[in-house]
């Protein structure tokens, strides 16, 4: 149940938006509290701590001592900024949104959220791909996955008795997981580099976590996802002031010089952002502005990265102050082809 002050069916209107997708089945989302719980904050802080104490970087290479020393202040600032940024425990969503003076880009109404949260239907949302051949990376797999956005993706090499490469896909919404499962098991469209991959629901036989195969999306994260449209992908975009744009859709030969931006150092950007969590891909975005996207393995990383980049005084604020930043569509957020 929602606590007092949270928008309900009667007072939801300022934040109601028309959905482009059907996010109307959310029985798995934790609904014990409408507030940002201490547990949620603790989990976030733990994630940050884990990143900061990790011995290997995003590419699996050991972080050397000088790098670690260089990164240490960043981690500290990050932790401080994060706790400052988060909504106070006694603050409800509406107040928090007003405080931030921003309209949420939510994907569902709280009315729906509340209505379906009490629905006891299937909560399964974690799918395991169990027979990934050697030489097949997670990006190749994700390029063929559809159904809906992910909360996170885990990729294990040589796991278990079978010494298999395994990917765990944590869909945000069980309905999307079910659609992908149906697509991958009843058609032969789910083929990666010529191999038909086997998908299974997470269970005792294939999961690392023996207690909870389909954990709920934590409430603090659910709110980031529902109210702020949080996704694993962050899109960075910057206008090019000197550029003259033809207002036509007709094809033409544009000026090569003014349509080319120098000095975009993706390696540096990767180094700066990998502290927030594993990056699966950094890709170009097709835009009239200079634009790229960063795809994290976990939506939490994108949430923290965005907050830090947008916080005045944070280590990355100066670097990205001229850039617009928003959550991009998850590449797996595509409809599945029907039978």
């Amino acid at each position: 149940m929602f606590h007092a002050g949270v928008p309900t069916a009667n007072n939801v209107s300022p934040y109601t938006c028309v959905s482009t997708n059907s996010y109307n089945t959310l029985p798995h989302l934790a609904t014990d509290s409408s507030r940002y719980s201490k547990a949620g904050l603790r989990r976030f802080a733990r994630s940050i701590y884990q990143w900061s104490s990790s011995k290997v970087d995003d590419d699996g290479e050991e972080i050397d001592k000088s790098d670690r020393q260089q990164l240490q202040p960043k981690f500290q600032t990050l932790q401080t900024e994060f706790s400052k940024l988060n909504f106070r425990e006694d603050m409800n969503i509406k107040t928090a949104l007003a405080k931030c003076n921003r309209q949420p880009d939510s994907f569902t109404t709280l009315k729906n959220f509340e209505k379906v949260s009490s629905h006891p239907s299937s909560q399964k949302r974690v799918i395991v791909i169990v027979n990934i051949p050697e030489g097949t990376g997670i990006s190749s797999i994700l390029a063929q996955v559809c159904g809906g956005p992910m909360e996170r993706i885990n990729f294990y090499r040589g796991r278990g008795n079978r010494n298999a490469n395994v990917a765990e896909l944590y869909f945000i919404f069980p309905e999307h997981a079910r659609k992908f499962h149906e697509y991958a098991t009843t058609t032969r469209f789910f083929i990666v580099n010529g191999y038909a991959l086997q998908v299974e629901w997470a269970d005792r036989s294939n999961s690392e976590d023996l207690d909870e195969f389909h954990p709920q999306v934590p409430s603090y994260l659910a709110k980031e996802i529902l109210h702020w449209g949080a996704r694993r992908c962050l899109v960075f975009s910057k206008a090019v002031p000197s550029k003259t744009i033809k207002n036509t859709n007709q094809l033409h030969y544009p000026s090569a010089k003014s349509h080319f931006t120098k000095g975009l150092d993706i390696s540096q950007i990767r180094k700066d952002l990998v502290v927030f969590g594993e990056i699966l891909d950094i890709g170009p975005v097709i835009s009239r502005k200079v634009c790229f996207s960063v795809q994290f393995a976990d939506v939490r990383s994108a949430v923290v990265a965005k907050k830090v980049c947008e916080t005045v005084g944070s280590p990355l604020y100066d670097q990205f102050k001229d850039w617009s930043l928003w959550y991009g569509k998850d590449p797996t957020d595509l409809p599945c082809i029907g039978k």
Partner: protein
Amino acid sequence: MYNKTKKTYATYKDAKFSVDQRYKIKQLLGKGTYGTVCSAVDTRSSSNSSNEEEVKIAIKKVSNIFEKEVLLNRAVRELKLMRHFKGHRNVVNLIDLDIVYIEPYEGLYCYQELADYDLARVIYSSIQFSEFHIQSFIYQILCGLKYIHSADVIHRDLKPGNILVTIQGCLKICDFGLARGINPKYFKNKSSPITNYVATRWYRAPELVLSQKNYGKSVDLWAIGCILSELYGRRPLLMGKDKFHQLHEIIKVLGTPRKDIITKYKWNLSTTVKPQYERVKWNAIYPFASSEAHNLLDSLLCWDPNERFTVQQCLEHIYLSKLRDLENEPVCNQLFDFSFETSCTSMSDLKMLLHEEVEAFRSEAIVNKEK
């Protein structure tokens, strides 16, 4: 896609299309001698909800295949190749197939992924690039091409118009109409395996312009060199109006070829070698490109096909070192068998093969759980 219930067709008279009712035609995208392409949506993909996004697809109808053997052969080849390369993230995915025999809708219908743009539309517009954008585009094309070449297939028609681009910057190679296998294992007649053909002139390697009969994978690398230059220059580098003009355009940039190369390949260049041209430095044409890009251009756009870089050499070039993801540069798990080209010699053989291919694809599309 495969549904055992009888299909009901909807016809679109303007485009002369006849498709399963589950597909709603949206727009005519293009028309050529080979056939017609329309965009459509698959209504069945959204059956669970009223407001869910629908799967957008491209439907390519290959016409005249029942009248001209060469077109039928090409259609069979393209279909087999698309099935062979299914599942690579930089190669367009085939979704469904159908053959219609009723006039005027007759033809092979290929249902494929639809992207937001093709690379030509991206290059010839106000889209902003950086070195990273160009590196990523080239890297993705090379990953797709590595997969294709590893099956001993050459695409033979790589150009910006045959590379689809999503708004998220994912590139996919399409149009295998001119592609073919080259592994000697599948040639009955081992001599002179490849005949001449007509690919898009501006991206044609010099050995093709000079009608050399034996050519190989390096023709695709030349095309990639042309695409790389175009990504920097935002216009094609070598815009020949005919064969001789094309050769002249190449000579103006690369300089007159060395005598030993002309002799080695027995090129007939006597009418075009005068005046003598010096090689133009890439720095003069694309001053804002990095020296690594210039270096890669040198290795791709060179006269001697044997000196031209292979896909693997390109991927290992320093220009792409910051983007490489070794786990996502797969090779195809089997060679492409094109022995049908010699075993099927008549129209009726090819028709039967086409029918079998379509049926095989459609029955593969659904898992038979009883098996």
